[in-house]
């Protein structure tokens, strides 16, 4: 009774295996990001080259064989078209060859649900922060509601972009975080509109400061400003929804500074704050398998020709029959 989940929305090709909510395997192969960022066609090539061995690795880690897998899930979106296509094709092939049901999964929903499960939260307000997305998501009956989100780019994309401008190695957010520890605060533009926020103004201003201030100071101020914006919007959403729980998830949720700030913010309100292990915050197949299993157990079923991809698949479109 095991479910295999395939994630391929961006740089990670991930394969997870889940059985009754327990993760048996979470194998990944990651496209190495260079100073040029992600070129979708090249990332898709990487996925094509590594998908077979990643699936084999997951089966090996779980101690199961393909004949033990009785349903399969894949990321339908949001994500990069050429990359999503590889995971979809792999999942459809497995489904057809083995005559097992297939489930198209929303990527944001998968991050939120695996966090809810692993952090032991019942019904948290979720701050979902990654490269492409930054959203504040509340649950509602059979679905989700986005209360606030970025008006331009995702916070992770902003940090990665700055890392590339500052020629950091590796060129992404974790390098900014390292450099930020040694920096001091400099004023930067701060953009919050109710529960929405915007990052391009901040990015432009940080890029312009390069050469005139120390990189550490810019990193520090960029990160502090961006995370403060997220905290402010989240606090507003928490008070509005009267939510008693908060979860942070997605790639940027790996930042210990962001987690610290959210924890300090929630404490005076008596809100339970939770997050999960880094392997589930970076993109992974286990969360896709986990949601595919929820979909199966709540009675959803999908015809193969309805198993499409959607680069802009919104979490509000998800019919979450399990909640």
């Amino acid at each position, binding site marked *: 009774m095991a479910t295999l989940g395939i994630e391929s929305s961006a740089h990670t090709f991930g394969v997870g295996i889940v059985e009754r909510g327990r993760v048996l395997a979470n194998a990944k192969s990651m496209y190495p990001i260079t100073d040029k960022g992600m070129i979708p066609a090249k990332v898709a090539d990487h996925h094509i080259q590594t998908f077979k061995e990643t699936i084999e690795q997951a089966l090996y880690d779980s101690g199961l064989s393909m004949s033990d897998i009785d349903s399969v899930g894949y990321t339908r979106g949001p994500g990069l078209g050429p990359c999503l296509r590889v995971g979809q094709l792999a999942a459809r092939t497995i489904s057809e060859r083995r005559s097992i049901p297939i489930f198209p999964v929303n990527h944001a929903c998968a991050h939120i649900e695996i966090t809810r499960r692993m952090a032991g939260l019942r019904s948290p307000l979720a701050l979902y922060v990654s490269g492409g997305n930054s959203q504040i998501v509340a649950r509602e009956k059979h679905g989700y509601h986005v209360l606030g989100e970025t008006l331009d780019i995702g916070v992770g994309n902003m940090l990665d972009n700055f890392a590339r401008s500052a020629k950091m190695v590796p060129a992404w957010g974790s390098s900014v975080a390292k450099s930020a520890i040694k920096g001091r605060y400099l004023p930067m533009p701060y953009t919050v509109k109710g529960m929405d926020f915007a990052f391009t103004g901040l990015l432009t201003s940080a890029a312009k400061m390069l050469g005139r201030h120390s990189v550490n100071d810019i990193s520090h101020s960029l990160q502090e*400003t961006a995370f403060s914006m997220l905290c402010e919007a989240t606090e507003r959403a928490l008070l509005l929804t009267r939510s008693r729980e908060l979860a942070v998830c997605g790639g940027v949720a790996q930042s210990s500074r962001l987690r610290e700030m959210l924890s300090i913010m929630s404490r005076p309100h008596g809100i339970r704050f939770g997050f999960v292990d880094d392997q589930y915050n970076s993109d992974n197949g286990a969360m896709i398998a986990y949601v595919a299993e929820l979909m199966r157990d709540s009675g959803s079923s999908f015809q193969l020709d309805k198993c499409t991809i959607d680069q802009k698949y919104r979490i509000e*479109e998800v019919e979450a029959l399990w909640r």
Partner: protein
Amino acid sequence: MAMIAEGAEARLFSANVLGLDAIVKHREPKAYREKELDTRIRRSRTENEARMLYRAGAAGVPVPTVLLVSGFKLYMERINGKLLRDAITKKSLVQAGRHLAALHRAGISHGDFTTANIMVGKARVWVIDFGLSQVSNSIEEKAIDLLLMKRSLNDKGLFGFFMSGYGKGKGTKQILGRLEEVESRGRYQADRYRI
């Protein structure tokens, strides 16, 4: 001082200023953000709010009168009434639409124009909470004011009443065009307005 309300960025207390019934909006420190950034945000928002309230009042929009600004505390005239959120009528929506049009004509974007930031009094409809307002003639900012109202009303008919008050002044067509564009950016979709 008795606390009246607690928002995400400030707490409201009742107060008395020279015998006048007043409220104080106090922006207290946020421990999660760095001290310099925190001080800067709280100071600039408090000063900005006082300035914007004055400017909006001068443009003929009913807003609480600023009595005193002291550090991170803003003392204002106390308004008696209900939040529009809890007292939605066609008349009050049309009036709220007129007020936003007047703000936009005066080059002010409110920044958080929702039904929770409008008060319906006995004789007038008041606009409150100018903490995120700015002097701006940007079409984008104005479109976002309309978007926030549309989202908080969450109902086409009600938003229609609001828009009948907002009217068809100079530049409205452009703003409405931008509203459509912001919504279609894929981040804001129709079903987002479902609560």
